[in-house]
């Protein structure tokens, strides 16, 4: 029984700015980390492995540097890492990304559960997980906050919706996207760190996947970015100083109309 975790390497902070003079993204010196939501997916895969036995494979599509993200997953306890990396993948949007990852996952045997974080902290789309499920024609359970049961045929998971929790049963293989509430990711163990140093991480290129080159990279991406800009800054407003009894009545007077219109 193989668990596959899809991870993405992202900048450590979302506090990236555009240099007003050069219009370039200023991200020098920003460390690269595993997308925080994917950490919960790795942890949950490790817990599932502890419950049922099997192996955990971490897979990442990205530049050669994403190798370090896969090593971190191995340090946490993943059995192996696979880097999906090729210049042909450059310019991929969520359609082409989910296609490429799906084609890579299809190469893996005995793959029962695919886990993804609910979204990546840089793009925030939440589209790649369900996209992979669609490409592989698998059932999906998104926004999973708890796995109630699992056996080699089926899984029962709680899904977090806006107005409550839905409990869903799906046959395996199945794709899950997980939310923060599901667990607390572990720190790498010493043994894991040793394993991650020694691990051989294969790189799969476009030629290694049985895929249609027209569906990769720029050509396979229906969407195009035409402009990137900094949103107009939200300046700080008025700072109210003084004793509460002096500043609160005028503040409430200013907010009254907004409160009344909001409650209509």
């Amino acid at each position, binding site marked *: 029984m193989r668990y596959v975790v899809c991870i993405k390497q992202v900048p450590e902070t*979302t*506090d*990236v700015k555009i240099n007003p003079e050069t*219009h*370039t*993204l200023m991200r*020098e010196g920003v460390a690269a980390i595993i997308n925080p939501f994917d950490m919960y997916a790795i942890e949950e895969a490790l817990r599932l492995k502890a419950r049922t036995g099997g192996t955990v494979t971490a897979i990442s599509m990205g*530049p*050669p540097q994403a190798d370090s993200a896969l090593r971190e997953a191995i340090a946490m306890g993943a059995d192996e890492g696979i880097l999906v990396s090729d*210049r042909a993948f*450059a*310019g991929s949007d*969520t*359609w082409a990304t*989910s296609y490429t990852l799906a084609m890579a996952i299809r190469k893996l045997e005995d793959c029962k559960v695919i886990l993804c974080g609910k979204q990546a902290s840089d*793009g925030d789309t*939440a*589209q790649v*997980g369900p*996209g992979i499920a*669609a*490409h592989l024609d698998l*059932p*999906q359970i*998104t926004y999973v906050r708890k796995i109630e049961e699992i056996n080699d045929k089926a899984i*029962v998971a709680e899904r*977090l*919706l*806006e*107005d*409550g929790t*839905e*409990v*869903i*049963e799906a*046959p395996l293989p199945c794709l899950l996207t997980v939310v*923060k509430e599901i667990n607390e990711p572990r720190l790498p163990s010493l043994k894991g760190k040793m394993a991650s140093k020694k691990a051989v991480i294969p790189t799969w290129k*476009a030629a290694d996947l049985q895929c249609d080159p027209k569906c990769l990279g*720029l050509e396979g991406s*229906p969407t*195009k970015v*035409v402009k*990137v*800009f*900094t*949103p107009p800054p*939200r300046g*700080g*407003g008025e*700072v*109210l100083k003084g004793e*509460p*009894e002096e500043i*609160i009545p005028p*503040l*409430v007077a*200013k907010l*009254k109309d*907004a409160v009344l219109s*909001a409650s209509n």
Partner: protein
Amino acid sequence: MSDPIRIIVEKCVRCGLCVKACPFGAITQKARKELPIIDLQKCTLCGACLEACKFDAIWMQPKAAPTQDLSAYKDVWVFAEQHDGNIQSIAYELLGEGRKLADSLKMRLCAVLLGSNISAKASELIARGADKVYVLDRPELAHYQDEAYAAVLIDLVNRHKPNIFLCGASTIGRSLVSRVAVKVKAGLTADCTGLAIDPATGNLLQTRPAFGGNIMATIITPNSRPQMATVRHKVMKEAEVNPARTGQVITETIADVLLRNRARRLRFEAERESTMNIAEANIIVAGGRGLQAPENFTMLRELAEVLGAGLGASRAVVDSNWIPYSHQVGQTGKTVCPKIYIAAGISGQIQHLAGMQSSDIIVAINKDADAPIFKVATYGIVGDLFAIIPRLTAEFRKVLGK
């Protein structure tokens, strides 16, 4: 496979203009007067360097011509999300925005409604501006299920060919249209905060935040249809109700095999707390570490009750189990956009700001005058929230007559 972009060595004068022009830091020069190198892993082929280069020294693969006949794709569609047979307000917001897009393209505005015993609700969508409502009324569609709902939409899109397809960026919406877009090979842009039509090309200009709202990007789907987008709740204005409007209701049928679902709902548990879902709230009162102890949320609850507000929280207090995760605002919690956001004892970490900085009015109360929350606050009060909140509650109670 040849590279989709390259520098023409003979023409390049090594001026470095392209290095400065690249918004993604994908072009580097080892030293001045060295040949620039394009990192294809970072390059998004946006073309900014081509415009910047004065020597025509960069070649980029020409944009592929449309592979479909785009003129066959007409109308602006809106997915009408319903829970227990009640149409969600996001559908009315999409109709408000969809009306503008349809008018500027001189197309019809259509809604798609899936559910069980739902047909009577189509008139509500017409009253809000839909010219046509496609209804699929089947017991199997009573509540949302990924596979059956996606299969129905894929079938409808393939048969009726909409030009634009909008859906709410809700949990359901995001899970659903990601599957649909893959199967109909459509471009899908998540969480749009701005939509407009490019008058020159008729393309939908989809503007969305990335990097937690620190960067905005405008995205198009030039060569394929439909152009699909999800829109966050509360970003667009709801369409007004006009009961006199008329429209067409089209009852659709679908092959039983398409309603097959491998995953099935075993049960549904509504949120235990009776407090409002904060993503829906027009006013939010939120608390952080500055509250000092979980029981002090009572003070915020009182204020929230007077204002008819939802209760929000910072990650720090959720992680300390002072309040359930469903109240967490920010990057790992919910993104909210209320008319008024009152932050009490929240310092305003960047991850928190990412989830609330598009609120109309932000009121911040914090004892630390240097707290980052004040940088985004419309009204900032530097002071002791234990003195300020009860007075604020009392004053609102008086002014609102509660």
